[in-house]
C-alpha cells in the first residue's frame, strides 16, 4: 500500500464531488459534515461512472402521500439506472435479491426504512494531512 496525495482539501466542497485518479483507479471525493469520503467511480451494478451522478438525500415515507428526506447530501444516484448509494459506506439502498427471503430483516437505523442491498460500492478511507487529502492504495 502506498500513500497517495489525491487533492487539496479545499478542492472538495460539500454537495459536490471531485473525481481523481490514483494508481489507475478513479475515485470520487466527497465532503459531508466536515469529513471526507472516497467512493470508487464504478457502479457495482453495470459499471457506470457512479460519482458523476447526482448527490441527493434519500426519499423516505411511512405511508403513501407522506414524504421525508433523510440525510440530505449523503447519497449519490448512479447516472445510469438511478441506484442510490450511501456515500459514507458505499451501501446500495435497493435490494434486488431480497425476493428469495420470505421473512426479511429490516436494518433498523434512525429514519431508515429500506432494506439494505448487497451491492456495495468500493469505499476508500480519506485522511486529511494539513491541506491535503490522502488515500492509501
Amino acid at each position, binding site marked *: 500500500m502506498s500513500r497517495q496525495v489525491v487533492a487539496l482539501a479545499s478542492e472538495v466542497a460539500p454537495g459536490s464531488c471531485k473525481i481523481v485518479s490514483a494508481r489507475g483507479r*478513479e475515485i470520487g471525493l466527497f465532503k459531508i459534515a466536515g469529513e471526507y469520503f472516497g467512493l470508487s*467511480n*464504478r457502479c457495482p451494478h*453495470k*459499471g*457506470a*461512472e457512479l460519482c*458523476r*451522478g*447526482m448527490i441527493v438525500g434519500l426519499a423516505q415515507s411511512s405511508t403513501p402521500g407522506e414524504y421525508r428526506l433523510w440525510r440530505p447530501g449523503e447519497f449519490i*444516484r448512479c*447516472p*445510469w*439506472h*438511478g441506484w442510490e448509494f450511501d456515500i459514507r459506506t458505499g451501501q446500495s439502498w435497493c435490494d*434486488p*435479491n431480497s*425476493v*428469495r427471503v420470505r421473512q426479511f430483516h429490516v436494518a433498523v437505523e434512525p429514519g431508515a426504512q429500506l432494506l439494505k442491498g448487497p451491492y456495495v460500492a468500493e469505499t476508500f478511507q480519506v485522511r486529511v494531512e494539513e491541506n491535503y487529502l490522502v488515500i492509501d492504495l
Partner: protein
Amino acid sequence: MNVAVRQATATQRLKVVDCDIHPVYRTAAELHPFMSARWRDHMATFGTHFRHGLTGQLPYPRMMAAGMRVDAFPEDGGPPGSDLDLMRKQHLDANGVEYGMLIALSRGGMEERNLDFGAALSSAINDWQLECWVKKEPRLRAAIVVPQENAACAVTEIEKRAGDPAFVQIMISPRSSDPLGHRRYWPIYAAAERCGRPLALHVAGYSGGHPSTGSGWPTYYIQEHYAMSTGMQNTLASLVFEGVLERYPKLKIVMIEGGFAWLPALTWRMDKHWEHMRAETPHLKRRPSEYVREHIWFTTQPIEEPENPEHLGDIIKWIGWDRLMFSTDYPHWDFDDPRQVFKTRLTEEQKAKIFRDNAKAFYGLK
C-alpha cells in the same frame, strides 16, 4: 469501467451494432435550415401542439435530467445527445460501435396535431439527421421520420427518402391514435415493403392521446415507464390480428425499447385465444405466433434482469437467438453497456448474433 479504460479495449474486443441511439438538437433553431420561412414562423409563434396539458415538458417528469444520463451532458451546455464529439468519445468509440441506428425522437411526425406542420417537421428532421449526423459520422444510419397520422403525407416522405441508403428504416410510434394494425396506416406499410425498409417502432411521448393503460391514466413515472412494454404488446397484437403481417409478407418490424421478455407469454396467449375465436379473423391464414416469428425483431434495452440470470436464457431461447438486436438507448438514463448487459451466460455465437450479426442481417449491413 471508466471511459479511458473503455477506449483502450474497445477496438481490441468489442464490435457492436447499436440499434437505438437518440440524437437531439441543441435548440429547435438547428432545424431552421431545413424548414421554409412559413414553418419557421409557425414554429416560433405556435410551436408544437401535442395531446397533453403542458408545453415544453412532459406531464410525467423524469427522475433525472429529462430522462437522460447525468454524465452525458456536453460541456458546451447542450442537452445530452446533441454533441457528436461527445457521442463518439463516450459511446461510439468507447463501446466499439460499428454501426449506430439513429432514432430521432424529435417532436416531429409522431406527435404533432397540426398535420401539415408535422409533415414539415418530419422532412426537416430527416434532413437534419443527414446533414448533422450521418454525413459527419459514417458509423451512423438514419430512420425516416414520418407524420404517421396522415398516411398519404407519410408515404410522400418515405418515397422522398427511399433512394438514400443513409435511411435504413421507417420510424413509427406505437403510441398512435389508432392501433397500428388499422387500415388507415396500411399505405405506410405498403410503401415500406415497396422500398424494402423495415419499420422501427419506438415509443414517443404522447403521440396518440389515449391514456397509457387500458384503464386510465397512471399516476407515477414508474407506471408510465412500464406502459412502454404493455403498449408494445397491444401494438403487436393489433399488427397480427388486423392482418398486416398477412397482407405485407415482406414487411419486417423491429420493436425498440419496449422490452422483450414478455413476448413468449403474449404469443402463447394470442395463439390460445385465437384458436377459439378464429372465425372473427378469417383473413389470418396462420397462427399469431407464426407471424411474429417471421416478421418481428426486438432490441435488447431495457433488458429485463431476472433474479436468476439463467431465466433470461429460457426467454431468449423461446424467442429465438436470431431475433434480438443489441441496443443502448444512449443517452437515456437506463442505458445498457455492452460489456455488462448480459448476466446470463451466452456462447460466443449467441453474443455475436445479438451484438452484431442479427442487426447486420436485418439492416443489410456488411
